[in-house]
């Protein structure tokens, strides 16, 4: 057996997305990409660089600015036998495609009695980076309550690669959420083709005093926080959800049972948020533990740099919450 399985290569998050899509398109000619600027332009974040040259305009298919129809066409094509990746530039715009995604695709297997399904992946980009109130939101919490819908949100290039491959092989529908601030992030990705299954959280840092549960870009904030608090002799475990629906409740419970405290962290709103769901799932199983939730303040996310920074969580805010939690 070769050692290839242990070899890694360094690549940016955006490149890892592109690699996964390229490999799956090469392996399965039913896979195609459609969305705004996915063709010769290579994607809004250059995540599809080079794919247009390989696969051409039929399979790297530019759409007009029409999110409702784009998601609908992708859902219909999926129901008819293709495996489309529909790209919605910002997660805020996914709201326009909710009918096709939620009322049609997510219910199709159920309503047809198992005779039809929609193996559709919607890839969309969440998060704040100076783009204003309707280009910055993280609305994944709205999605995880939809029966039939899978939701994943990678935080590393390796996961971006492995989860995209799983998504494109899934019988869907799947919402794959990346983050504006993650695209330029480098990381090690296996050289060998690998797939990361849904429903598996990853422990990013071991700790004993409290567990921080986060996803997407906030995993980096959680790790930064853990670094800050180490100097204060406060040891944080950081769990990266990776997959929001299905959720890896086993790993979450084991971590919180060890540390005894839970801090949930997300960039979206805390009301009915991912953190609230994480805490509920854990406490339903192991009983209540001290818990603090951190997320955006209850305000829109402005493009104003001062207001944006004031709204979304940063390591200082998370550290402050962690200190409060540790004192309980």
């Amino acid at each position: 057996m070769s050692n290839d399985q242990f070899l890694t290569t360094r690549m940016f998050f955006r490149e890892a997305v592109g690699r996964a899509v390229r490999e799956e398109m090469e392996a399965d000619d039913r896979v195609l990409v459609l969305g705004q600027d996915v063709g010769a332009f290579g994607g809004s974040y250059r995540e599809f660089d080079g794919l247009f040259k390989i696969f051409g305009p039929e399979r790297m298919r530019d759409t007009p600015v029409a999110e409702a129809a784009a998601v609908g066409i992708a859902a219909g094509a999926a129901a008819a036998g293709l495996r489309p990746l529909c790209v919605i530039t910002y997660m805020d715009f996914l709201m326009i495609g909710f009918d096709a995604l939620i009322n049609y695709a997510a219910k199709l297997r159920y309503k047809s009695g198992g005779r039809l399904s929609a193996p559709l992946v919607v890839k969309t980009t969440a998060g704040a980076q100076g783009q204003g109130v309707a280009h910055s939101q993280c609305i994944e919490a709205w999605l995880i309550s939809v029966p039939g819908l899978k939701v994943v949100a990678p935080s590393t290039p390796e996961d971006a690669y492995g989860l995209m491959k799983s998504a494109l092989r899934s019988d869907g529908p799947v919402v794959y959420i990346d983050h504006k601030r993650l695209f330029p992030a480098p990381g090690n990705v296996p050289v060998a083709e690998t797939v990361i299954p849904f429903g598996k959280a990853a422990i990013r840092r071991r700790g004993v005093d409290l567990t921080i549960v986060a996803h997407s870009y906030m995993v980096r904030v959680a790790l930064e926080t853990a670094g800050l608090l180490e100097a204060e002799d406060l040891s944080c475990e950081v769990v990266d959800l990776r997959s929001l629906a299905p959720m890896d409740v086993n790993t979450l419970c084991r971590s919180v049972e060890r540390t005894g405290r839970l801090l949930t962290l997300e960039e979206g709103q805390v009301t009915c948020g991912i953190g609230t769901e994480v805490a509920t799932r854990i406490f339903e199983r192991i009983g209540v533990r001290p818990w603090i939730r951190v997320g955006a303040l209850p305000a829109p996310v402005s493009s104003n740099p001062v207001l944006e920074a004031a709204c979304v969580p940063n390591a200082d805010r998370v550290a402050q919450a962690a200190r409060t939690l540790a004192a309980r």
Partner: protein
Amino acid sequence: MSDALLPLRRMMLIRAFEDALAARKDHGFQLLSTGEEAVAVGLSLVLEDGDQLLTGGRSIGPALARGVDPGKLMAELLGRVAGVNRGRAGRGHLSDQESGFFGAHAVVGGNISIAAGVALERKLGGGNGIVAILFGDGASGAGGLYETLNIATLWHLPLLFVCNNNQLSVSTPREASNAAKELRDIGRAFAIPTALVDGLDVWAMAKVAGELVEHVRSGKGPAFLECSSLRLRSHSTTARETRSRDELAQLHKLCPIKLESARLLTEDQITNAGLEEMRADAARQIEDVMAFADASPYPEPEEVLAHVE
């Protein structure tokens, strides 16, 4: 049975089916197509086995016209496991792709882009199958229609847009719900072939739909057909009727089944006795359909979590 009588026979079956369904107390609420049978039957006459039809929520007549098994359809509408979707879809969401009925989606306008996706698969997968999307004048104000017309035209999708203009969107008259002079004008904006047809005349329906189907099947892209029809019942079996009895009585004179029966009589293609026999045949068939549906049970409550993921 001669081909000349086939459309009438199919329309009578739809009418008998829907009347029998409406008479049941346990049917839930339904969107019936009384007065619109010629649209479904005429269109289906020119669709082929490899084609797919999608509709809005007013799906029963079109599904029957397309050849969905009437017994399984009735079972579906009554919530029984012998239904095409195990009784869980109902009229708003039923599908039977093997019969060329890819399905209903009862969010008004919502199925139009879905149909374009099915058409995209047809185009990329080769073959000469086309897709028809049937929607009402009520959907003509919804954005999905315009977005999909634009993309379907840009991509030359094999998609026939069929607007069944039954003149009313629940209570809102057609003139108050869309600013276009004729609904076919919506298609004209995209420079695709359009036609306006008398949707009460089943043969005219088949002829004009056939011309547009030929265009779509030839790979030249989409086309838009407006069918002028009538809704002879209220919007749904639980909705209030907004028209007067006198007005409805006048409209009933234009019933497409009456018109086709009269035409066949005038042309000596059928006798009054022949018509009566045809009605009796439909009634007998619906008795069997009801017996089949009633023999099937409701799903077990445990089925609620099946086929979610």
